[in-house]
């Protein structure tokens, strides 16, 4: 093959575009001369490269063509002409316009939703005047020889103090602690509420304006409380409450400030703030480790750094502090690090997060899905426009004859696509308003996370997106039409290659269908996996069990009232509800006093095992019913025996062995068959059950036998009111709670399902359009074939063969991809999952296939049945 010996065309064109006409010719000649010289001395490739570099080098002030006023004026006049002809075209081709406007508006409404969502996430905590300078301390917790290290959003009080005292470049520092809550007593008024403990610098770091009180001193004294406007109104009926008293438990707190409500897009959320000095007094009493380096679980430290802070020095200091403190502890390492407030609500996943958190991956997935749908709709536009080239090339030819240059033809086609995308924007905005409501009600955490409210900047984003989409969709048709050869278009349309770019168009269809197939298969597999999670054999029974939160009431009293209901069969007590994702852990040792391990714990009474139908491998239920603090029995699962190597092959032999739990010696009286303490994503771990008779912070589990479950719940509610008038009853069926625990998956399935639905609709519309245009163009050919004796069946086969092949190709790409993705990536995340069936994989494909075949079939049959005489006569 002969190497091209001319400089790259695009570089030549670029030069011609920017260079002043009076300088151009000479410059072109010079570059050409050098180019020829370089070919001889350095070879073609380098010569071309040098040419390109030179073209860019000559982009200088004295060579650039200055824009001329008259050009701008012509542009302006032409835009009006573009708009006029474009709108005529849109009105004339109703099917074409409808397919595009519907497709684009549906896809854009999803994009609008994603834009609103992301823009909300990005603007989290923007109301803090010093957002850029606020940092939080995170803690990396590494326990020697155990588990994976975890990063916590929380840290120790000691770390905060060390930094405040020892570090030079910290402007302000605040420490907080979560978990303040209880019943607030104001006179006879009792209202449950909660919030954070926070130290006095809170208001100088964060921008939460105080309506009343002094921000500098409000959180200084012990037993001071700052209320939000809403909670003040709730407690007192007014916001004018400075100096009034609120009672929690037996302690009086003085209201030292009233602040504006916390904005929705704040990662810190609370109804009230209590001075941290209170926590130092109250918590330190019960927790001797309060001020220790390793007490990192519920404290948060935020700081305000100076504008020009030397992060390197800061990090060096931090490292020194970490090294010094971690010397003292041999079992675990706690390494603190800084995190900017910008990354707090949109960043990597952390444990013990104080507020809502979304990982960037989720955002990228959403953007990706919206992008795919929008792109799919753009493909439709491109495909259909190019397919119509036969009808429009004569128009373009005339335009060019009248003197239109390439740029103007492109301008016209781009204007047309932009008008369509703007029309679509109007429709999609209405759809967006509807979708927004649906999206927020999809799951409570979404409603909690974002508001999706309309702002000016959001409007600007929407418009920008519509323009970008219009440009993108129109670009290829514009390029295509602007290159049309005038003479060919005017003189002899028959030689005009209508089916040019067919491969390209086919490729677009395959891409569309591949994506649709991936989405629908994902939905089907995801849904089946989700169902199998709900009906998973957890190792115990959950049917007809109502778990009721005690909310501080005595379990014995509540049990007494509930057991009076006729529907109630049996009642047990428990510290927590298993299999929902929440966990309680404790340190357990066996003989060898060095080997201690974290073991999950539940405290239950002697009815618990029966109600949940747990299976005992060996031993028996609790029998002693001891008073609190006198427990001596423990029931373990098989994993505990494995972990401590207590007669692993023979559970019977493990009975009577002693475990040391929280420094107490407990005898193993029973061994449970393994069950799922956590969710099915996690492996089954060691679990112990301890006896409890009354756990006011826990639950009672009520087994009911009733046909009318809602009525039973209502009866329970009435019974509950007899005991607790302040707190509403919080009770739900175990099965519902499990469904709730996996609600994130149901949300995912719903979202992906919706996206799949849209993708299929858009791809189908595009396919429909293509089929219509192709059959229309081939109408004469079909008629001639018919006259010559072709049967309807062969004609339908002829017309639909191509499309069916495309579908098959798409399926061949999409299905293995999805399968591998699930097999290798998604399902690996779940320790226990059902296997994928053949049905799961092919169901979606069959559905799409059927849909497409109906569409193709109906059109081709119509064409095949047309009367050849009518068609041929009219020519």
């Amino acid at each position, binding site marked *: 093959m002969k190497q091209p010996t001319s400089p790259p065309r695009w570089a030549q064109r670029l030069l011609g575009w920017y260079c002043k006409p009076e300088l151009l*010719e*000479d*410059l072109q000649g*010079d570059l*050409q001369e*050098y180019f020829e010289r370089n070919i001889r001395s350095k070879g073609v490739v380098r010569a071309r490269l040098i040419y390109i570099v*030179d073209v860019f*080098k*000559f982009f200088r002030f*004295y060579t650039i063509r200055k824009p001329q006023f008259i050009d701008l004026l012509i542009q302006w006049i032409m835009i009006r002409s573009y708009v006029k002809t474009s709108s005529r075209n849109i009105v004339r081709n109703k099917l074409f316009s409808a397919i595009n406007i519907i497709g684009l508006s549906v896809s854009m409404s999803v994009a609008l939703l994603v834009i609103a969502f992301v823009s909300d996430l990005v603007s989290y905590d923007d109301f803090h005047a010093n957002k850029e300078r606020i940092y939080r301390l995170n803690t990396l917790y590494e326990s020697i020889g155990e588990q994976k290290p975890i990063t916590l959003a929380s840290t120790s009080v000691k770390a905060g103090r060390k930094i405040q005292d020892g570090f030079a470049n910290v402007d302000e520092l605040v420490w907080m602690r979560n978990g303040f809550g209880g019943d607030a007593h104001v006179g006879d008024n009792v209202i449950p509420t909660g919030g954070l403990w926070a130290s006095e610098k809170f208001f100088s770091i964060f921008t939460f304006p105080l309506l009343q009180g002094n921000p500098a001193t409000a959180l200084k004294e012990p037993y001071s409380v700052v209320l939000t406007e809403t909670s003040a109104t709730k407690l007192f009926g007014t916001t004018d409450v400075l100096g009034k008293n609120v009672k929690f438990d037996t302690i009086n707190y003085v209201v030292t400030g009233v602040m504006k409500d916390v904005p929705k897009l704040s990662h810190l959320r609370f109804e009230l703030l209590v001075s941290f000095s209170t926590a130092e007094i109250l918590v330190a009493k019960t927790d001797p480790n309060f001020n220790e380096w390793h007490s990192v679980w519920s404290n948060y430290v935020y700081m305000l750094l100076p504008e020009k802070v030397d992060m390197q020095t800061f990090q060096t200091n931090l490292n020194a502090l970490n090294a010094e403190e971690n010397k003292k502890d041999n079992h675990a390492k706690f390494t603190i690090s800084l995190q900017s407030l910008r990354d707090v609500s949109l960043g990597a996943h952390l444990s013990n997060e104080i507020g809502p958190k979304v990982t960037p991956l989720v955002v990228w997935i959403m953007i990706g899905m919206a992008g795919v749908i929008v792109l799919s709709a753009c493909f439709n536009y491109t495909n259909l426009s190019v397919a119509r080239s036969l009808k429009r090339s004569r128009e373009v030819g005339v335009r060019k004859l009248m003197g239109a240059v390439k740029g103007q033809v492109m301008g016209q086609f781009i204007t047309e696509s932009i008008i369509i995308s703007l029309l679509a924007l109007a429709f999609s905005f209405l759809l967006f308003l509807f979708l927004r409501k649906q999206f927020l009600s999809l799951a409570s955490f979404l409603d909690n996370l974002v508001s999706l409210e309309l702002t000016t900047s959001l409007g600007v984003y929407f418009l920008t997106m519509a323009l970008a989409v219009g440009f993108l969709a129109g670009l290829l048709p514009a390029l295509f039409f602007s290159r049309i050869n005038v003479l060919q278009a005017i003189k002899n349309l028959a030689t005009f290659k209508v089916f040019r770019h067919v491969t390209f168009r086919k490729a677009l269809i395959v891409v569309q269908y591949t994506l649709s197939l991936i989405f629908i298969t994902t939905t089907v597999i995801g849904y089946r996996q989700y169902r199998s999670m709900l009906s998973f054999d957890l190792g115990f029974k959950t049917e007809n069990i109502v778990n009721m939160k005690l909310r501080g009431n005595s379990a014995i009293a509540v049990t007494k009232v509930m057991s009076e209901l006729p529907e109630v069969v049996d009642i047990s007590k428990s510290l927590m509800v298993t299999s929902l994702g929440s966990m309680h852990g404790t340190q357990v040792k066996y003989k060898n006093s060095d080997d201690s391990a974290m073991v999950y714990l539940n405290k239950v009474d002697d009815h618990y095992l029966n109600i949940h139908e747990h299976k005992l491998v060996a031993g028996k239920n609790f029998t002693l019913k001891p008073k609190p603090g006198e427990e001596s029995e423990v029931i373990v699962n098989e994993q505990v025996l494995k972990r401590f190597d207590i007669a692993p092959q023979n559970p019977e032999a493990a009975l009577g062995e002693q475990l040391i739990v929280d420094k107490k010696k407990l005898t193993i009286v029973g061994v449970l068959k393994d069950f799922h303490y956590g969710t099915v994503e996690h492996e089954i771990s060691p679990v112990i059950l301890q006896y409890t008779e009354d756990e006011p912070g826990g639950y009672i589990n009520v087994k009911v036998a009733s046909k009318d479950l809602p009525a039973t719940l209502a009866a329970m509610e009435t019974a509950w009111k007899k005991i607790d008038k302040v707190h509403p009853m919080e009770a739900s069926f175990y099965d519902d709670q499990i469904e709730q625990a996996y609600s994130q998956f149901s949300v995912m399935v719903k979202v992906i399902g919706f996206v799949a639905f849209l993708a299929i609709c858009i791809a189908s519309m595009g396919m429909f359009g293509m089929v219509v245009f192709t059959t229309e163009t081939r109408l004469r050919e079909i008629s001639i074939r018919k006259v010559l004796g072709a049967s309807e069946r062969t004609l339908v086969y002829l017309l639909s063969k191509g499309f069916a092949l495309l579908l098959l190709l798409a399926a061949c790409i999409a299905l293995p991809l999805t399968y591998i993705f699930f097999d290798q990536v998604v399902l690996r995340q779940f320790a226990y999952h059902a296997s994928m069936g053949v049905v799961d994989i092919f169901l979606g494909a069959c559905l799409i296939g059927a849909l497409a075949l109906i569409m193709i079939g109906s059109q081709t049959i119509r064409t095949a049945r047309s009367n050849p005489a009518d068609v041929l006569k009219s020519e």
Partner: protein
Amino acid sequence: MKGTNLGEFEELVLLTIAALVNDAYSVAICDELEKVSGRSAKLGVVHAVLNRLEEKGLVKSKLGEATSMRGGKRKRYYAITAAGKAALIRAKDVRDQLWSMIPGLSLKCI
């Protein structure tokens, strides 16, 4: 006024144009400069200088005849103007004057 003084490279280019007489176009100027001075003269630099000299009125240019060389593009030939000539002579005078002030002995010592 800034435009009245010649830069060192401007002076070289101007001299080259004068030396090439009827064949002074950009590529030839580059080649000649390279040949005489021994240092590489980049087209971009020379082109910019030529443009500046023309703006200052020291050279004038016209397009030549089209040939099949250079991809059919015409060459732009440069010729020195009276002002250019004056500027060259002035520059030479300044140098001559300074040279004449150096005693022969001390120059040899350096």
